[in-house]
């Protein structure tokens, strides 16, 4: 005892400050990089080089706002009605093929809105098979002989987006309905309410938070869309942003429109946030196992099958069928060395984005685990996830601004000191595109990795550390093997989403550089839908992979792990 005491007293008092934590430094750095585009836009909007607000407000902005609002309202109502009704049917009724429809209803999620827009245009335009058929039946000849709705309109846009985005609502509403205790519903029935009234008075309000989240996610996608509204000539804010930037080359103006869009994003995010907060408190989390489903008498049950079949057929079977047949018809024209180059470009960019997103997500999630109770790390992880809500076009403007500033700075330095120009180092390179992909999809990757890490018990880390493994070895030796499933999911989703991404790619890609998505967009814009089909089919096939994974989870159990539920 005295010995040790003496030792301590005589030893020089050496206060070893905790060393700089590389994990945290790295996490801060990457989170800051991920937040850079958003900050850049806000900064530009606040301190514009050239104020075009007055001009914008007096001319086009009201129109952009109006169409954006109408589109979002329309899509919101459409996804709500389709998603909630189908989710209600598959959870509360028994009908033929119900189990199959539980996952079939997810399939439209695999199709980008612009692809379905191209397909329906091809199908329903004047020269398309439907109108041809009508003309041959009724003997009409000219467009003015009869009335046929124009698919390339606001209504068409709402319909198209509603068809591919309703699965967000369906997925979350279904999970919420399954989580509800049947007792609540039965109590309502016993109190004398009809089946439908009980649904309106009890089940729907309890599921409301989940439904709100689903609708918010669908609307974020709506705001993100460029391909559809461009093709249908709907003048939304995104369209305006393109006009101002690509048409007029006015970066400040583009940033100001981008800020207006960010306001929408903030609204949607708060909607989603409050939805999720309420969700925790509305849903017991306890799942009822053997739910007794209502059975309609005799063949009446088939009406329900038919009802559920409508969105699947319209949102998946018809467009994919058409896509396949067009891809076959135009195969020789499409399968060119150039096409293969574009496919390779897509593959390269998407897999780089996936790899980088995984690495950053691992760094941030693991740092958060190492600093379990740190609020700072929670903020870091949230900040790094900001991008998922930012529309691609807005994000692209946010990438251009700091990249251009950096390029100019380096360039001027080089000229000043070495007498040569470095030109553009980052802007207009594939690096900028990959950067945008990573920022936009980092949230998905962090969500997936954090949720699988959270399933590994804390004591596993403590056991490994006390056995002599430093933090990084605990990650590589013990965590990686345990969370490889989550990593794979993260990578897959980022890969596929990057592959589909259109608006940011269009703005940021190097001159004459094409990916499958831009190639499809280019051909479709030139009214050559047939030639674009093969590329679109590739994108849809890639998009099917995560949806199939999701479906398998759904059909295997009732546990729904939605892509973004983990956020």
């Amino acid at each position: 005892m005295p010995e040790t005491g003496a030792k301590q007293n005589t030893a020089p008092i050496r206060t070893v400050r905790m060393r700089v934590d590389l994990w945290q430094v790295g996490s801060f750095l990457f989170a800051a990089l991920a937040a850079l585009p958003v900050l850049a836009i806000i900064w530009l909007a606040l301190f514009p080089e050239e104020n075009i607000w007055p001009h914008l407000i007096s001319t086009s902005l009201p129109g952009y706002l109006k169409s954006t609002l109408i589109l979002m309202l329309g899509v919101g109502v459409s996804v709500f009605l389709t998603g909630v009704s189908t989710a209600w049917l598959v959870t509360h009724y028994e009908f033929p093929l119900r189990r199959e429809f539980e996952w079939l209803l997810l399939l439209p999620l695999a199709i980008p809105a612009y692809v379905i827009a191209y397909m329906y245009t091809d199908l329903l335009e004047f020269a398309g098979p439907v109108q041809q058929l009508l003309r041959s039946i009724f003997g009409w000849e000219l467009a003015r002989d009869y009335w046929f709705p124009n698919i390339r309109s606001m209504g068409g846009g709402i319909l198209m987006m509603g068809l591919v985005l309703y699965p967000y609502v369906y997925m979350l509403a279904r999970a919420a309905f399954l989580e509800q205790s049947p007792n609540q519903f039965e109590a309502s029935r016993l109190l004398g309410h009809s089946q439908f009234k009980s649904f309106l008075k009890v089940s729907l309000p309890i599921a409301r938070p989940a439904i709100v989240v689903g609708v918010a996610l669908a609307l974020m996608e709506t705001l993100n869309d460029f391909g559809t509204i461009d093709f249908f000539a709907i003048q939304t804010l995104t369209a305006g942003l393109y006009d101002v930037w690509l048409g007029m080359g006015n970066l400040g103006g583009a940033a100001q429109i981008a800020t207006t869009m960010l306001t929408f994003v903030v609204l949607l995010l708060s909607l989603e946030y409050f939805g999720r907060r309420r969700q925790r408190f509305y849903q017991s989390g306890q799942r009822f196992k053997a739910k007794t489903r209502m059975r309609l008498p005799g063949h009446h049950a088939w009406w329900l099958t038919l009802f559920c079949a409508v969105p699947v057929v319209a949102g998946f079977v018809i467009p994919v069928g058409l896509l396949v047949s067009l891809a076959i018809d135009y195969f020789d024209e499409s399968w060119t060395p150039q096409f293969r180059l574009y496919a390779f470009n897509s593959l390269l960019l998407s897999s780089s984005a996936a790899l980088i997103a995984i690495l950053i997500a691992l760094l941030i999630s693991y740092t958060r685990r190492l600093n379990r109770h740190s609020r700072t790390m929670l903020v870091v992880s949230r900040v790094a996830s900001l991008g998922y809500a930012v529309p691609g076009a807005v994000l692209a403007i946010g990438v251009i601004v700091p990249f251009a500033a950096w390029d100019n700075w380096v360039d001027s330095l080089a000229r000043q000191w070495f007498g040569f120009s470095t030109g553009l180092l980052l802007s207009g390179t594939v690096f900028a595109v990959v950067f945008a992909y990573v920022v936009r999809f980092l949230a998905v990757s962090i969500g997936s990795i954090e949720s699988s890490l959270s399933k590994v018990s804390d004591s596993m880390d403590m056991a490994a550390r006390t056995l002599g493994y430093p933090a990084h070895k605990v990650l590589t030796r013990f965590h990686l093997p345990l969370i490889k499933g989550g990593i794979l999911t993260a990578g897959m989703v980022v890969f596929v989403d990057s592959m589909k991404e259109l608006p940011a790619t269009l703005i940021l890609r190097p001159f004459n550089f094409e990916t499958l998505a831009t190639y499809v967009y280019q051909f479709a814009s030139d009214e050559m839908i047939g030639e674009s089909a093969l590329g679109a089919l590739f994108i849809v096939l890639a998009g099917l992979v995560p949806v199939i994974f999701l479906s398998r989870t759904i059909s295997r159990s009732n546990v729904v792990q939605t892509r973004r539920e983990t956020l």
Partner: protein
Amino acid sequence: MSNLLEVRNITCQFEKTRVVEDVSFDLSEGTLACLLGPSGCGKTTILRAIAGFHPLISGEICLDGERISSPDYILKPELRQLGMVFQDHALFPHLSVFDNVAAGLQDFRGKAKKALVHSMLERVRLNGKESRFPHELSGGQQQRIALARALAPRPRLLLMDEPFSNLDVELRETLGVEVRDLLRDSGTTCLLVTHDQQDAFTFSDKVGVMNDGHIEQWDNAYTLYHEPVSRFVADFIGQGAFLKGRVREGDIVETELAMLHGKVPPGCKPGCPVKVLVRPDDVVHNDASAFSARIVSRNFRGSSYLYTLELDSGTQLLSMVHSHHDHALGEQLGIELELDHLVVFPDESARDEQISQTPHQA
């Protein structure tokens, strides 16, 4: 003998809440000690602080005379040479039993490593299971593997966090004894954390009873049971009831059953209302006694009955009675007090009310 582990006035907090406040204790080499307390009392935080997973706000922790934790310094957990065993066993599910036990033997190679793992498995009586995977083993076997894994690198100190809580009652007792004997044989110093007093008593030489971030009492089991220093310890350890009383002159406490002699807490002046701890084994069945109480409930324990008795005043007592004494509910039972240790606490509830009614006197 010098102390292996010295915990000096440590304070820990979670966010803004202090979960451990000014806790101190020492462990000498070879001691099996235990922190016992209800959930949320801070005992696991102390364990985590010793292992280097939780920072200190104040105080210090020394191992073998070397300071390993202080508010501005934390020796990394992997450098502390401690072993740790967890409630959920925390075996690495993707590694075989052999690889799990060998996980801490990074400095060993080939034959030496093999021999060490085998001898460890032999000591926990699980030799032959080397190639199994954790999920193929029972809970008790998993915990023995976890123990073997923690002991294999010869840790300076073994920390165990509720190691038996996931096991069924019978197993936890036999495993508790087995682990204790194994640790004693190897001379391992161990600190165990549990909320279960049976675990604590089976296992340890010294028990620290914790409440709300403090250690209320650091003693052996016998003293904790018979001479608790606080109401909390008295309540938490064992069963018992409190008998109202009043301090008389000297060290005498007057209760409705008897005049009792013993140490009275220093703050209690004559006339001050107190509560006397009465354990079930302090209440002895005696038909010749002048006092009787009505049986209000009974609980058959096999070798004994635990009766809840009610005195005329309404006070309830517990009494442990040999199971041959089978009495019906409502029956009057003659009782007397046989207190070896008088444990008296000031009666906080009565202090304000100033009880008007004086206790019955014999």
